[in-house]
């Protein structure tokens, strides 16, 4: 169904090409609004309807969505950086220098990637705080909170593995300091440090390992965890709201 009033929206949405892609007309009535969500691969993770309360800015502060947007920006800029970067101690540093000076938009893309990463660590932490302080971890969302804590850890580790890649003094010593902490653990410490670095000191093997972790292993883990996280939000009945407080028979106020 479309408006049928000959408007531009009508013209665009009433033809075979549009319909072959979207399977419904312009979402100007509730039926099409519902279909716009359930018929779309990208949108179908959303429920058709949401509680008014969950749209309140002062409830979520949009922090979960912003975390996700930052992750998307990081994937796009990160893939772009990969075109110009080779994880070798001979060339990594000059590759980054070239990005800064010779590659079109290189400096901008690198800065975007760097600052998004820092901001994501901050925003994910703030999101955790908002979930905690609103009591949104309570039943039935216990497990999604646990997934969340893992997401926080993975976000930091992902950021940390990227820290080594420019192979400058900042990266080198940050990673040396951090892996030395690991190395001081009893029994497993030293083997674990060597496993991370692939050698006694940070060098070529460490660079390749951190690179592989940074561009595929950890992002894959992150994608899976975010997938579970979003799926659980749906399964747990959408976002928490004060209306749920009285639902539980044995603890009513």
């Amino acid at each position, binding site marked *: 169904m479309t408006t049928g009033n000959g408007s531009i929206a009508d013209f665009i949405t009433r033809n075979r090409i549009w319909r072959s892609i979207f399977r419904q007309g312009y*979402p100007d009535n*509730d039926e099409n*609004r519902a279909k716009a*969500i359930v018929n779309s691969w990208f*949108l179908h993770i*959303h*429920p*058709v*309807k*949401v509680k*008014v309360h969950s*749209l309140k800015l002062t409830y979520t502060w*949009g922090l979960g*969505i912003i975390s996700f*947007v930052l992750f998307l920006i990081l994937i796009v800029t990160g893939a772009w950086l990969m075109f110009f970067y080779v994880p070798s101690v001979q060339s990594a*540093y000059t590759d980054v*220098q070239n990005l800064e000076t010779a590659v079109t938009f290189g*400096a*901008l893309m*690198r*800065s*975007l990637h*760097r*600052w*998004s990463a*820092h901001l994501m660590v901050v925003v994910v*932490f703030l999101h955790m705080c908002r979930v*905690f*302080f*609103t*009591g949104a*971890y309570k*039943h039935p969302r*216990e497990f999604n*909170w646990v997934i969340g*804590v893992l997401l926080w*850890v993975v976000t*930091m580790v992902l950021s*940390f593995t990227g820290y080594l890649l420019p*192979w*400058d*003094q900042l990266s*080198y*010593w*940050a990673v*040396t*300091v*951090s892996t030395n*902490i*690991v190395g*001081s*653990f009893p029994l497993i410490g030293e083997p674990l440090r060597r496993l991370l670095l692939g050698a006694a*000191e940070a060098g070529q093997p460490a660079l390749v390992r951190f690179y592989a972790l940074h561009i595929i292993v950890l992002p894959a883990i992150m994608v899976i965890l975010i997938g579970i996280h979003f799926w659980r939000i749906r399964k747990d009945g*959408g976002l928490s709201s*004060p*209306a*749920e*407080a009285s639902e*539980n028979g044995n603890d009513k*106020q």
Partner: protein
Amino acid sequence: MTNNNVPVQEIFPRDPSRTYGLMELVKGTSPMVDKGPEDTVMSWPNLLVLELLAALGTTVVLLLWSAFVKAPLRELANPNVTENPAKAAWYFLSLQELLLHMHPVLAGLVMPGLVIVLLMAIPYIDRSKKDVGKWFASKKGRKIAFWSGVYTFACLIGLVLFDEFIRVRSIVSQPEAVPGWIIPVFVNAGLILLLYRAIRRWRPSRREVLVGLFTAFTVTYFTLTIVGVFFRGLGMHLVWPWDLPPGALPF
């Protein structure tokens, strides 16, 4: 499971020319029991517009930020030239701060491990569904959070200053386990216990106790990060931010 799929208004269309009376209240297990009328809106466009705005806002802010502030790049890595201070990434600086005051296993393994395990345990400790969706649970929760934050901040500043200017190790350094393990464990456990006892005096719910403890955690993470980033100079000694050696900021 919440079931909001049955729109009340459509089963009983409202007709302004009639009056309605409530006939009976029933006890039962229908999904609508204990629920008011639906309070939902279509996701399209209400939610999607907000998501789009969040995405655009984030992108614009980052573009501006990145256009004006370039990502740092120092000299080529050189294993022979130790950076001083050698700092970890800023989000690990709270751990590096702990490292200055206790055994590395305590600072780098036990403490972060405990924090992660305890964080994950939160929903299994606070199992009531009271006050879901209410910031800080209650007025009392708000007060507990505030005073817990103040207390934690004051304790941390005191501890950091004490270990810099008086130094635990100048009082007892042998055997290593005393300054490395025993003193840090007892001091920290003691301060947390004290906080817990103080919170208990408010007669709080479990949730409110957790609010106090979680606040202590966030304030610790925040304070130690700020100290690590802005107040640690040569040899990781305390300095004012304006006296930091060049290149001491880890970003």
